[in-house]
């Protein structure tokens, strides 16, 4: 073996060790029985249930509004479109703390739209609804980006064909474009789901960390890592399992292509 090959193999081994050891440690630091037992402690189940509900609610909103928006961006060309897409992508690179502050400044109690939100009878701060808003804000761009690419890759003559067969554009969108874009849309949904499940900073700043109301799994892990390490580990193990399942399902559905990790 040449020195070069040795160094290649050594680098890969280091990367693998460094990236997988902490993940493996989550599962082996305590016995499986202890992990399962600690999930039953008060607060842990609350956090899991809240994360599930808030993420599901955020995804419903993201899919319902993001899909037509992405379709429009993928099929129309108009002035300022590039600027618009950049604005939509901005939350992708925003530090979570900045996202939290930005949400507070926009729709927080003393934010620029705070009065209007309050007048509409919606309470966001320190409420589950606030968690949902934070999740939508950070996860939506992941979905929209992927959905634009998915719609753009569908052959546009399919929509033309649908119209010449007597279907309005709205019907063609629902019956042809969305089904044809499903693999890409599913990949986008998985990315948004992964991002929403792991959301921490923006939720903490915007909605706080109250058990059963705004304390999602990541917040619960942070809350107890110094007092109840077992339970923090157990919650982490659940997130690792769910994240792995998401990654795997995307790869299976899409051959990894959607995430840009497919072999060439």
């Amino acid at each position, binding site marked *: 073996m040449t020195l070069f090959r040795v160094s290649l193999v050594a680098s890969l081994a280091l990367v693998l060790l460094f990236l997988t050891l902490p993940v493996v440690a989550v599962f082996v630091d305590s016995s499986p029985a202890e992990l399962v037992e600690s999930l039953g402690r008060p607060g842990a189940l609350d956090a899991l249930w809240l994360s599930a509900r808030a993420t599901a609610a955020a995804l419903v909103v993201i899919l319902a509004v993001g899909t037509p928006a992405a379709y429009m961006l993928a099929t129309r060309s108009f002035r300022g479109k590039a600027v618009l897409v950049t604005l939509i992508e901005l939350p992708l690179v925003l530090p979570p703390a900045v996202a939290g502050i930005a949400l507070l400044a926009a729709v927080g109690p003393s934010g620029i739209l705070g009065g209007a939100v309050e007048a509409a009878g919606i309470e966001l701060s320190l409420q589950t609804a606030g968690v949902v808003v934070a999740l939508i804000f950070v996860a939506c761009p992941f979905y929209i980006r992927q959905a634009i690419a998915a719609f753009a890759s569908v052959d546009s*003559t399919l929509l*033309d*064909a649908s*119209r*010449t*067969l*007597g279907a309005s554009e709205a019907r063609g969108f629902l019956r042809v474009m969305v089904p044809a874009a499903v693999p890409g849309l599913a990949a986008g949904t998985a990315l948004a789901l992964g991002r929403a499940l792991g959301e921490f900073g923006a939720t903490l700043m915007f909605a706080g960390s109250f058990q059963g109301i705004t304390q999602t799994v990541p917040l619960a892990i942070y809350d107890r890592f110094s007092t109840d390490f077992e339970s923090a580990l157990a919650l982490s193990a659940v997130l690792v399992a769910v994240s792995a399942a998401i990654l795997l399902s995307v790869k299976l559905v899409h051959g990894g292509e959607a995430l840009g990790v497919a072999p060439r």
Partner: protein
Amino acid sequence: MLRVDARHRLGSLALDVSVTVGRGECLALAGPSGAGKTSLLRVAAGLLRPERGLVQAGEDTWLDTSRDLEVPPERRSCGYVFQEYALFPHLTAWQNVAYPLRGVPRRERRERALGLLERFGMGELADARPRTLSGGERQRVALARMLARQPGILLLDEPLSALDARTRARAASELAEVLREVEAPALLVTHDFSEAAQLGDRVGVIDAGRIVQEGTPSELAAEPRSAFVADFTGAVVLTGVARSRPDGLTAVALDGGGEVTTTDPGSGKVAVSVYPWDISIEPRGAEAAPGSTKNHLAAEVVSLTTLGNRVRLGLAGPQPLAAEITSASARELGLGPGARVVASWKASATRLIAD
């Protein structure tokens, strides 16, 4: 009856076309890619709004830019077969065919779709998805889907170009049969003149956004009005300078050397055309003694392409030539690249086209 007038500027293309197709008639427009063929179909279907245009189908006016009238594509009763067929990938063959059948009970939709598929011999593949079908099968699904809506007009964009050579002949005869049966006027575009001649009752040659000549296929082949049309119909086009001869024939001194004789009158700079199947090939030095064939050009074989039982010869003479002979003749003459031959044809098979 279908009438489409369209004037539209699209990039470097200035489309300016006016066509009329009668009931039960198929007008085939043939031209090179970029000539505006697909744009014209899109105007007829309502997928492209021209700067100025008029589209009338039977009693209905679908587009009249002078009155700012435009009917959206979904309310125009037209069957459109797209170049790559545009079958919906997530639907099965029968669901594709049933797509236009809205407001029909589910059972009946399936039955009607199956009936149409069976008509094209596709009944057994009703539950197959497009990606598992061959090109010829996809074409049949596309034709069935087009007919499902009982369209008032038919628009066909290169319906055979997505097929391989072997499937094409059969698909062409199936398509010709559909066109014969259907009463609706049909507008077909293709880049292949022989396809247009086979499928169209009339053929229009379209170049750079304009129809340069229109007529029956044999009219176009016999009397091409320009070198472009002659070339496009598959003829060999040679350029030169013509002068009248005392015997009433016209002699054309070819650019690059050699002379050919034609029965057509003309003078000055001209082009002459002859069809490859009117050219006969003899080995060099064995030209027959004076006969009825007036034109002889020395040439060298550059390429041989087998087309079924024929061979198309690419020839290098004073100007490039092509000849089509039977495979048997090619074998008997022992032709191969580099063979030195004489290409001969009659003055009466030589058309003169004013430059």
